[in-house]
């Protein structure tokens, strides 16, 4: 009887991957390849670099699947965290300068409109994406750049040539507003 890897839970797939089972690895890639590549694209905005980062991320899983600790949260959260740090490292290796062009950050959003995901965390992610568009553009830009590029207040200030105090204020106001909008959206959803 052939094992249906696509129906297995993440942790079971990882156990098979620990035994160098390529079919289990393919199933995991089929499940999360587009999420990993999507995040890498959002950070790097370059198909070739995003492909390399996605490849590195999945190869880390193949080489060391036991690095994921199920007690610390969902596998996809861990996988996306690895993707984000791998992409940030790639930005640093490439010595790439960040851009203040907000339209570049919206590129991926515009190109990939999707339906409502079933997974609650991915639905939440889609909600965040919509709420970010409700922030004043100068706040949304710093929040996105800071989070996606792993940059601190002073790094953002230096790279974008914006006074440090202004960066701090915009980041704070942006995130405070995002939190309120997010809570309101959850409250509305609970009431319905």
């Amino acid at each position, binding site marked *: 009887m052939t094992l249906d890897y696509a129906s297995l839970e993440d942790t079971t797939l990882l156990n098979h991957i620990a035994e160098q089972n390529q079919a289990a690895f393919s199933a995991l890639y089929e499940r999360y*390849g587009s999420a990993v590549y999507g995040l890498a694209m959002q950070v790097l905005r370059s198909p070739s670099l995003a492909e390399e980062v*996605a490849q590195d991320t999945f190869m880390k899983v193949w080489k060391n699947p036991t690095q994921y600790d199920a007690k610390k949260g969902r596998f996809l959260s861990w996988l996306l965290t690895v993707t984000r740090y791998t992409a940030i490292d790639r930005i640093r290796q490439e010595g790439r300068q960040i851009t203040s062009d907000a339209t570049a950050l919206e590129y991926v959003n515009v190109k990939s409109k999707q339906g409502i995901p079933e997974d609650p965390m991915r639905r939440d992610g889609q909600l965040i994406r919509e709420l970010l568009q409700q922030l004043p553009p100068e706040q949304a830009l710093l929040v996105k750049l800071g989070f996606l590029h792993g940059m601190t207040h002073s790094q953002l200030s230096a790279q974008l040539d914006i006074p440090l105090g202004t960066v701090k204020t915009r980041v704070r106001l942006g995130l405070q507003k995002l939190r309120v909008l997010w809570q309101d959206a959850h409250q509305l959803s609970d009431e319905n």
Partner: protein
Amino acid sequence: MVRNDNTTPQSTQPDCDTLADLLPAYSMGMTDTAETLLVEELLVHCPEQATALEEYQALSDAMLFSAPDVMPPASLGTKLQALTTPEVSTTVDSDSNKIRTIPFRNAVIAIAGIAAVSVILFGLVLYLLGEVDSLRDENRVLSALAQDNESFLNVLGTGDLLQTSLAPQQDGSNAVATVITNPQRTVGLVRVENFPRLDPGMTYQAWLIRGDDRISAGIFDVDPSGIATLIFTAPQSLANYEALGITPEPAGGSDAPTNSPVVFGTFADASSDSASGG
């Protein structure tokens, strides 16, 4: 615990408003080192901010999921499959073994011969495809290096360059490294030699050092000869950093060093130890 210096709020009146202002950025990893330390200290004194911290951290987790799915190119799946497939030679050997078990009959020998040739040809095609992929990857790496070199050469052309030798830090090690920097710029180069190959799942990570801060300058792996070259970009001009060290870290790198350094060296004064470039 409260430090006895004037940068720390009084224990009787902790500055919880400052904490509330910094929490959003702290949760996203956007605070600078001094701000991070301040937040972690104030959290002890302002327990009412714990709920806000949890909510901002949940927001940070959700941000990870905010990137929309994008279908990766088919080439990614193909590459991953190739990278996780056992060596071609193993397949050929195993098939050859099967062939040897076929009974000795002329007709079967002829068929087996054709099959063996097919297997060899198939293996050869796979090998050549692998070589083509390898050359493509090499070309991409060389292109990236060329871009890096271009930005590095821009640095070479301005001001005094500083050459710093990093000495081995482990008994019996002959690992060495050389760092070339322009203290007024943010780009530097480090070349390592005699570095031991690491186990799978590990990588080397370079760290710029300033006081107690350790700032990642990038990760790299060495070739079979133990050699690698890394061009790195620092967040600030390199005059702001005192030293550079290299440690083995888990694949993907770490937020801070988790192992002892393989090599370490302090940046000398630019005027006393300049390289010949400039």
